[in-house]
């Protein structure tokens, strides 16, 4: 009886927006972004923390939604230089070996993934001289490679820095950009310049060992 927090329309949707925010009541950018997406007919929105408050992700349901979409959007605030915990669990549970990646895992081949993120720190803090010590891009390789290993393209992220303090107008403008992008996909000018994604096949030998007595459990769990 898990509350179904996905938008009900599914027939003609080709964009799957996964919105992850552990405390919506504190959100001033991600929430309006999610609402803007919900208003678009071609978009199916999954409010992750509301659908799975007990962290029990319905894998079959998620895979169905992914299979239907051409563009997958990850919408969340950056927390500890990465995604919120439930979003990470979603990757762990839903992107299974043999389905999303690895041998026979080509369900996501040729799809696009777009990260739409916010940060608490302003852009200036993401600088060798700032308190975050690295440029923001330095935190993205894990995202990008996770996407690429599934045979998807990692589209240039849309990021709003300093989300707690940024002015109302900037927020409104950000939302409008987001909305227009969703509407115009895939007719984005920068997509033409994007390189085709390299093929990364994870061999079975890098997977949990079957029948062998030597491998330890710890090393065997999880994605590559």
């Amino acid at each position, binding site marked *: *009886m*898990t509350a179904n927090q996905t938008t009900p329309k599914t027939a003609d949707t080709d964009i799957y927006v996964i919105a992850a925010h552990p405390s919506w009541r504190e959100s001033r950018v991600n929430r309006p972004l999610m609402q803007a997406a919900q208003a678009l007919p071609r978009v199916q929105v999954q409010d992750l923390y509301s659908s799975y408050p*007990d*962290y*029990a992700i*319905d894998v079959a349901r998620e895979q169905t939604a992914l299979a239907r979409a051409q563009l997958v959007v990850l919408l969340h605030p950056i927390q500890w230089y990465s995604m919120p915990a439930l979003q990470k669990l979603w990757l762990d549970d839903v992107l299974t070996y043999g389905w999303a990646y690895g041998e026979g895992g080509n369900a996501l081949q040729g799809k696009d993934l777009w990260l739409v993120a916010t940060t608490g720190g302003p852009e200036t803090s993401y600088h060798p001289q700032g308190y975050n010590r690295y440029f923001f891009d330095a935190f993205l390789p894990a995202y990008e490679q996770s996407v690429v290993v599934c045979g998807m393209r990692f589209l240039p992220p849309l990021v709003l820095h300093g989300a707690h303090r940024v002015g109302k107008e900037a927020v409104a403008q950000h939302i409008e950009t987001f909305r227009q992008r969703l509407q115009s996909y895939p007719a984005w000018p920068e997509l033409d310049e994007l390189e085709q994604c390299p093929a990364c096949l994870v061999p079975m030998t890098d997977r*949990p*060992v*079957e*029948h*062998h*007595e*030597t*491998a*330890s*459990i710890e090393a*065997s769990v999880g994605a590559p």
Partner: protein
Amino acid sequence: MTNAPAWLSNSFIYLSAAVVAVPLAKKLGLGSIIGYLAAGIGIGPWGLGLVTNVQDILHFAEFGVVLMLFLVGLELEPTRLWNLRRPIYGWGSAQVLGCAGLLTGAAMAFGVGWQTSLVAGLGLALSSTAIALQTMGERNLMPTSSGQAGFSILLFQDVAAIPILALLPLLGAVVGENEAIAHSNRALEAIKIIAVIGGIILGGRLLLRPLLRWIANSGTPEIFTAASLLLVVGIAALMQLVGLSMALGAFLAGVLLAESEYRRELETDIEPFKGLLLGLFFIAVGMSIDFGVLMKSPGLMAVILLGFLSLKLALIYGLATLMKLPYQERPVFALLLAQGGEFAFVVFQAAAGAQVFAPETASLLIGAVALSMLVSPLLLLAIDKLLLPRYANCNTPQLEEISEQQEAPIIIAGFGRYGQIVGRMLLAQGIGATVLEHDADMVETVRAFGYRVFYGDATRLDLLRTAGAASAKILVLSVDDMEQSLKIVDLVNEHFPHLQIVARARDVTHWNALRDRGVMRVEREVFESSLRSARTVLELLGQPPHEARQTAMRFRQHNLELFEQMYPHRKDRSKLIAVATRGRLQLEEQMAQERAQLARRRPRHWHD
């Protein structure tokens, strides 16, 4: 109006006086009793003079008090009455004897003859059951410790009135004329009394229930109402016959029926009669206030009134302290027992009849009692407005100060082991909830822990309304009885459709029945805790805690889905079993596959 028969025009006068005065008094925040009393004064011989046969009306309307005690009895199972035996005899006798002694002494100190002093003291020591119980009912005080104590004392007074009335002829001028007859009669009377009470208890136990069942099965509701009334009237007549208090007999019958399945029907049938007759009784009291005596000797009247009220107040307040009642409840408790009662009317009239004192003295005393009945609701108001707010500001742990209308956005019906968890979690969040619990013992227990809990049966529409069902958003339905739970849902669906129900289901049948009524937020009461236990078992078998959790979560999800699939077939047993079996096999197969997969990967497995 001249051609209308007297009963018709009288009814018209009473009803219209009540209809005008009571809502007005309520609007002014004075309570219904003052409204009735004012209506009585208005139409009585000293007001518009529309009604003159005051005494007849008063006698007739006393039946309202009888009905009220019957209803009180219905709420009180014999075991609970038995638990009250000590407050009844202990505190009851302390109150009656203490007050009577004090008042008699005071009167004698003013140079009044001892017979007059004694009768006046005894009569004035009694309190008005009608006003006290009505007020306690309106304020939901019955389940509190002061309510129980007050009720016990009132019950004792009802018993005590009998020897007091029996005492009067001995004190009167006519004494001695027929003492011999009285002696031989007394034994006979005692036998009669025992026979009647025994008959009521025996009949109530053995005869009444089958009789009521037979009448109920006849399927004519008005006959059941007639039977209910007949029951009370019959018992009252019997008691009257042997010279006992009618109210006491009715109370006894009520207690005997408290455990019967017809309790609720009897309650709903008698309730309106009680309300109207009690109203009439208050009107009659208002009419009987003899303003003539008051005008003639206003000073003396004031002395009597103030004297007996303040003496009684002081003594009862002292008793309340001895009883260790919460001190916030003491003023109301003392006041409710301090005013004179309807029994005093009877006592003083009988005393005048027995020539213990002159009729003028009687009407003076009766006037004082009636005035005290008028004054005490006003004083109560003053306590509410002036005294209690000050207590509220004190930094003491405040016991339930039950106001009438509740406004919290959440109502919790049932505060047992289920509702308590819900309520406490909300409380920890600072979210206010109005809690209704129908088990008095449970109320007492959780109150001792400082929770604000109202004693009340949530299957009653009026109580739900008082609990704020009209303005609340959510009803947590955590009563353990399935029948009551469904009854509340029906009430809410009919009268408060905006309320969102969060319900506890005892079992699948209950779950289905709740679904049938459109309640979607239902939890099976032991489902989640059973899952936790299953997890613990897996852990003890060596499964890592997190994997045990994942297994439990998956089982949970599957089970919830299965319930949804089974729901449409809830009335077809064979299909139900088919769906359930298929579901179980599916899950077993799925889990076995996963186990096999895991085992293949798992180098050193712990159990299989």
